[in-house]
Every structure is written in C-alpha cells, then in structure tokens.
C-alpha cells in the first residue's frame, strides 16, 4: 500500500489515484507519528514518506491536524471492522467478548504505528482528537452490553460495568503501547479477557472460560 504508482502516464482513473494517495498519506502519518511524535511530524515529512508532493497533500487535507483526524477515523474503523467480524462469528456472549478482544489486540499488535496513533498520540493531540478516542471506546459499549448476563450478586446493574471495563481495557492497552510493548499485545489477552468478563460472571467462571479457549 505504501508503494507509489508508476511514474508517467498510466491508464488509472483520477479517482483511483486520489484514493491511493489518500491511503498513502494516512499510512505515512501513522508511521511518522511513531517515529517522531506529533509535534515533530510535519506536512513535508508526511508527504515525503507517502511520496506525495506537498501541493498534493493540500488537495486532500487542509492541515496536519486534519490529516491526523482522518487517519484516526480510518484507524478506528479498521479495528472496529476486525472486532465486529470476530464478534459476529460467535453466539455465546462470553465467546463474543473473547473473540472481539482477541481480534482487537491482534490487529493493534500487528500494526504498532496504528496502535500508537490510536492509543498514544490520540490522547495528546488536542481535545478534538481526544473526543474521537472517547467516542471510539464508547462505541463498543453496545457490543459488550448486548446479551451481557446480570451479575448474580451485587447491586450494580451490568451496564454500569460496561464503560468501566472498556475504559480499563483502553487504559491498559494504551499504557502497554506507550511502554513500547505493542507487539506483545496478543500475550496479554488472557488477563484483559479475564478483566472484562469478571464483573459479569465472577472471577472463577471468567477464568474457566478463558483457560478453556
């Protein structure tokens, strides 16, 4: 995806070229952010990584920030697509949660520049981007809530745990990525899954389900 199109005349449609450039720019900003951080990432740097000229950059985006926001949205949708696909393959609630978490961790772990963009840079790049981070995490609440069991003891309703679980997972995964351990994300699946299932099923049942996987 990061290879530029062949130079010179080619039979590709304008739409295709534009789309290809846009994708390369989004990939480039993710890579640049991992390498340099937000402040040191410039439009020139993004352009050169993407092999897109500065003037072409400005045909797609008004600014670095706009490029970042577009990359953010793209990143969220990629993760969401994988999580939802994995979710849909299962029928039982606990299996769905495990499949969704595994898919999310796997996808972030395989692409550290996107993990960094979504979970580290996303928290630092100003209120507009942070708002999107929040919305992204909140958007998984309905999946967690759908079919979730009521705890047999305790007074709190299960939906009160949904946000706390997702927030905790986002915080933990973010800290792992921040510490440079993005490629180890799949390894922490058992503890993340246990943490997610425990408020609904209790620790013993949560552990049993995860070790049976």
């Amino acid at each position, binding site marked *: 995806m990061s290879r530029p199109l062949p130079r010179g005349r080619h039979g590709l449609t304008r739409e295709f070229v534009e789309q290809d450039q846009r994708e390369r720019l989004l990939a480039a900003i993710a890579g640049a952010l991992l390498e340099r951080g937000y*402040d040191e990432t410039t439009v020139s740097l993004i352009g050169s990584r993407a092999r897109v000229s500065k003037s072409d950059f400005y045909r797609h985006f008004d600014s670095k920030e706009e490029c970042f926001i577009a990359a953010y949205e793209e990143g969220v949708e990629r993760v969401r697509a994988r999580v939802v696909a994995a979710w849909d393959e299962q029928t039982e609630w606990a299996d769905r949660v495990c499949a969704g978490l595994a898919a999310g961790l796997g996808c972030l772990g395989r692409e550290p520049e996107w993990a960094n963009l979504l979970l580290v840079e996303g*928290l*630092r*790049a*100003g*209120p507009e981007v*942070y708002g999107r981070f*929040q919305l992204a*995490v909140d958007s998984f609440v309905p999946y967690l809530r759908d079919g979730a069991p009521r*705890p*047999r*003891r*305790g*007074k*709190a309703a299960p939906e*009160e*745990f949904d*946000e*706390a*679980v*997702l*927030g*905790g*997972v*986002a*915080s*933990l995964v973010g*800290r792992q990525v*921040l510490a440079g351990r993005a490629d180890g994300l799949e390894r*922490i699946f*058992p*503890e*993340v899954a*246990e*943490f997610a299932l*425990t*408020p*609904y*099923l*209790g*620790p*013993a*049942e*949560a*552990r049993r389900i995860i070790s049976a996987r």
Partner: protein
Amino acid sequence: MPSRPALPREFIAAHKQRRIMDALAELCAEQGYEATKISDIVRRAKVARKTLYDNFDGKEEVFLAAFDAARDEAIGRVEESCAAVEDWGQRVEAGLAALLGYVAQEPVLARLCMIEALSATPATTRRYEDALAAFVKLAGESLPRSKRLPETIDETLVGGVAWIVYQQIRREQARDAVDLLPQLTEFMLAPYLEAG
C-alpha cells in the same frame, strides 16, 4: 489604636498563587487551555501581570502548579481515609469515597486534572500519566496480592475507574460524583470475590 499586624509575606504570596491557579482552572473549563491568555488569567485572578510572572514562568507553569496542588490534595485525602481502615474491602471503598468526594467538591480542578491535562501540553499529559501511576501504586497497597490475578490488574482497575470519573466530569455531573461509589467499589472488588 494600633494598626493591624501585616500578614506574613509568604501567606500573601501563597494566596495570590492560589488565586492565579484557580483563575486558570476556571478559564480552562470555560474556554480551554489554548484560548486562555495571560491577560485573561490576571484579570480573573485580580492580580497584576507582574505578580503572575513573579510567581510563575508562564501559562504552562501555572497549569502544572495547579495540577500538582490538586493531585497532592486528592492523594492526601485518599491516604488519610484509608489509613484507619483495617479491612481491605472497606479500605478500597474509603479511598474511592475520598477521591469522589474531592471531585464533587472541586469540579473545576478535577476537570483540569482529568480532562484539560490530557490535551494542554506534552508536559501536562506526562503529569496525568504520572498521577495515574501514583494512584495505581496506592491501589496496589490496599488490594490483596493474588497469584491468580495478573500483575496488571491494579492498572486496569484504576484505568476503568479513571474512565468513569472522566465521563462523569465531561457530562458536567462532577458534583454528583459520590453517586458512583457503589458501582465503582463493586467494580474494584469484583476480581477478588468468589462466585459472581
């Protein structure tokens, strides 16, 4: 009639610093850190520009000082409320109650620490991360050690609590933060209780 004794210089200076920090916190809540100018701060705090610069290098330093003071106060209250409690479950509840009580009492400072700090400057973001780590350490001191739970359980629990408190502040319901106590206590204790 003898004239009133002058207040000690340090007291006056500290009081002015407090006013400057509170003014910044209020302005951040109203219009965000970026839009807040030194002139806004000195006008709100009713101090001279020179006074601000005598006490702080600039806007960021005011922010960091306000953050540090609020963090220290919150941590102090949590530690104090936990100190007298023997039972670890009750200690967790007492600590949460102290934290939520602080948020309810100081919504503007809570917002500064938990919302504004994340987007103001890289230094303020690092302060937030360090403060979160301090709370993780505190939680670790109360929560029982269990071989069956991962080392990261403290981090995940505190992260989840922070998220919920953040949402509460964002929805302008900081003053009702203490309402969250039952659900957050249950959330923190859940991994340690048998048969859910």
